[in-house]
């Protein structure tokens, strides 16, 4: 069996293009989706505006520093939602219906195929909003990012996306073993919920335990904290340490999730008849 290696970039661009065509076919649906997810963001923002009516800072994060943190959360989450969320949901469906057979037959890496098939362009509205909030917060903080900040921020946003992706693909892969996936979204939501806050808020005996657990075992706490700190706070040795750890965590999560995905595929038994 001699076959040519598929051109992954080309395949991905085709997926992206097809998704865009599909989105533009149902234009109103696209607009409604974009607007409604923006409304969620605004409500969230409203909630913290309200909190900052009563306090000046949350665990050392001033109002606009915290908004910068939120903007980073939005940027990372929107990227995950755009590229991976619809695919993970579809994957569980493929397992339940046995449609995964067709993905396995294609002469391309299965994980690549099921991870990138759909792109949900509507979620990019949150990305744009996140960027806007980021710039606004920087302007309010009167911070002009230096060249290394401009360079490193996207790198660590990317690391964060990788960690979230690994977590998602791991959760999706478990539905091969468990057969049902109703709690997939819930699990995802409940775990990533911990990443939405600065890690300094997890204090006290339980807090430090949680901090340890969500930094070293399931590293969701470094996802937003590391890039947000880079822009918003003075960096010291300890913070640089965590930054370096984020790279390590991203690589390790990706490898671990790859391994889990492959072993899960090994125990896949088709459901179709």
């Amino acid at each position, binding site marked *: 069996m001699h076959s040519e290696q598929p051109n992954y970039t080309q395949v991905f661009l085709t997926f992206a293009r097809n998704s865009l065509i599909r989105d533009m076919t149902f234009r109103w649906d696209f607009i409604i989706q974009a607007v409604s997810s923006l409304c969620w963001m605004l409500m969230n923002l409203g*909630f913290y505006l309200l909190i900052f009516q009563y306090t000046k800072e*949350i665990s050392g994060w001033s109002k606009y520093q915290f908004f910068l943190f939120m903007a980073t959360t939005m940027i990372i989450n929107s990227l995950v939602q755009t590229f991976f969320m619809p695919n993970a949901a579809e994957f569980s469906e493929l397992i339940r219906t046995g449609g995964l057979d067709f993905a396995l037959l294609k002469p391309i890496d299965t994980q690549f195929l099921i991870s990138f098939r759909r792109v949900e362009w509507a979620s990019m509205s949150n990305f744009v909003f996140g960027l806007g909030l980021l710039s606004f917060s920087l302007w309010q903080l009167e911070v002009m990012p230096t060249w290394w900040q401009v360079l490193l921020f996207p790198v660590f946003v990317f690391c964060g996306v990788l960690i979230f992706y690994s977590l998602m693909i791991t959760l999706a892969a478990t539905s091969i073993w468990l057969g049902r996936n109703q709690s997939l979204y819930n699990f995802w939501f409940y775990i990533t919920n911990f990443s939405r806050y600065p890690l300094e808020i997890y204090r006290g005996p339980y807090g430090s335990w*949680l901090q340890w657990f969500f930094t070293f075992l399931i590293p969701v706490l470094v996802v937003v904290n590391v890039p947000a700190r880079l822009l918003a706070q003075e960096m010291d040795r300890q913070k640089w340490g965590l930054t370096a750890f984020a790279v390590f965590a991203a690589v390790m999560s990706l490898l671990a999730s790859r391994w889990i995905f492959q072993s899960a595929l090994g125990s896949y038994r088709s459901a179709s008849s």
Partner: protein
Amino acid sequence: MASSPEVSISPGEAITTWKNWFSTHWTILKICLEERLVYRGDFALGTLMRFLPIVTQIFLWSAVFSTLPSTNQNGEAANIQGYTYHQFVAYYLLTMISRAFSSMPGLASGIAKDIREGAVNKYLIQPIDMMGFLFLNRVAHKLVYYLMAAAPFALVFFLCRDFFSGWPPTETLLLFFLSLIFAFLLGFLIEATIGLIGFWFLEVGSLLFIYMLLNFFFSGHMFPIDMLPGFWRTLVELIPLHYLAYFPAAVFLGQIEGDALYRALFIEACWIIALLFINRIAFYYGVRRYSGYGG
């Protein structure tokens, strides 16, 4: 099922009719129970997980309160709009109870789907009132839910008992239960009426989304609505959504007392009656528009 017999009958027959009515509903309830009990492990775990976001709320509010001086100029313990740190946590836990009563997953979208796919036919050709049936069905579902969720709820509240400063007085407790039942009725009527809009628009998905969004923010699920500044607070108190999560919790915590409490309950009762009328009218005219495709 909800309709009473129209012909005049002897007492003996009446008893038989009621026996039949009771056994029918008892069977429905039993089936519902057994259906739900199949996944009891999954269910208990799912219910426990629903409390996880409260963990982050506890830490968040602890961080907020740590920036406030421990007593204010009046010598009271640090509070935001009358809520101390412990009351904040208690508030979030209590809204979980209110929402267990007021949330109606799948009700509106289910009604809209029945309309779209012609499944309303099955109610129209039987001597059953669709809204009455859905209401009883929902009551049964909720009863099963409370039966199953009691243990996880009790566990969480036991673990968090230090956030509560004891039981409120009996009167408050009774009014708290009343407000929960009202929350159930109000939640049912709002969602059912949104579902009925399907007679006119067929697709209510985006409408439901807007409702969900407003509900999440203005029901008090996210924060106690007395935190809102002037204009917003008035606005939120004008629309009935705050009865779905905020109100019962605030009653339990003694945030609303005396005349204000009875007045709020009275307004809520008015909303329920008004919505009941709107619901009946919408159903009456909706069915006349309905063409029963599919079926």
